[in-house]
């Protein structure tokens, strides 16, 4: 338990402020497949964004802008719900 803080340094009652650095990098949880988009086919319906359980769909200026693979757990939901069928699951080699 090296690196863990002693009791004197912990916040009162364990109340914490959010610190993104302390969140697990859940991209590592993927088990072989990752989503890939063919942007040409994207109609910007953002249904992938709505239904992604891991907030791994990036939206910039209201438009679909790719995947956050640090977060994406590879569930394939985006691929399944994309009405344009423009998301495919591909081998996760990285």
């Amino acid at each position, binding site marked *: 338990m090296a690196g863990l803080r002693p009791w004197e340094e912990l916040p009162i009652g364990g109340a*914490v402020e959010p610190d993104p650095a302390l969140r697990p990098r859940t991209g590592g949880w993927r088990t072989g497949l990752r989503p890939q988009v063919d942007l040409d086919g994207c109609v910007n319906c953002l249904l992938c964004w709505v*239904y992604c*359980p891991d907030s791994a769909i990036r939206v910039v200026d209201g438009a679909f802008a790719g995947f956050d693979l640090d977060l994406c757990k590879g569930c394939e939901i985006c691929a399944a719900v994309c009405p344009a069928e423009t998301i495919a699951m591909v081998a996760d080699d990285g």
Partner: protein
Amino acid sequence: MSRLKTLVANERGTPPLAGGHALCQGCGIPVVVRTVLDSIATPKVVVGATGCLEVATTRFPGTAWNVPWMHVAFENAAAVASGIEAAYRALARRGALPQDDPITFVVFAGDGGTYDIGLQALSGALERGHRFLFVCYDNQAYMNTGIQRSGATPLGASTTTTPAGLESLGKMQRRKDMTAIAAAHRIPFVGQAAASHWYDLSRKVEQAVAAGGPAFLNVLSDCPLGWGHEPKLFKSVLDLAVETRLWPLYEVVDGSYRITYLPKRRVPVTEWLALQARFTHLQRPDAEKIVAEIQRRVDEDWDRLLRRASSDAAATEVS
């Protein structure tokens, strides 16, 4: 702005619930949470009951929540929210709030924390009229502890405490109708929704928040682990629950029932059952009766719902 644009806008910057939480791959819960919170424009304060959502988002010292969030125990989320809301009103009356923004209070609890162990605290809070939105993410079992039956578990489902076995066909009781129970409390807004139907859900959230009193939303949320299906079937399995009329989408506003989505055709429940490993044993010959019973009750409940909705609609027209 379209509803979807609004959701996107509300999540921009620091989303209420951030990615990088430890819920399972493909879990439906965060879809519910995001849709609900993104549909609320005001600042939000969130209360959580013990369950998958809580455990997987708040391992000390990290948290996935960017909004004020509190968890106390499994069975008391509505009571905790009552206290917070009472504090808010007391401080507002005395002009002692840290800031002026109106706050929306949202509670998230699983079906266990709503139908079963949390029911009493919820019922009491509804009777007292606290102004908060209670959202049950109903995945039909105690998932956090490993898929045990709850009052929400449907007839025939195999769980680890109602396992199908040589002498068992899974849970032998029908599920509690929690939405109807909440509606019987005559609060301003009660809604039944599904994680798969984001627009319907989002609209109900908006109405619920505007209702000016306690509001209850029962949202069907899938659990690929507990239901036994591939994560990618998220939408299919939930859609089928709605289409089979097993999980009707409706609302009860000031006591009057209204169906918010009318399935096109009668899909047999077997289609829904077939997708999920928890119902595999229902394909055994000795389970035929159970399957028939499930279908019979779905039909009966749907008929009753239709009846309530149409007589309430007629009454509204008259008055």
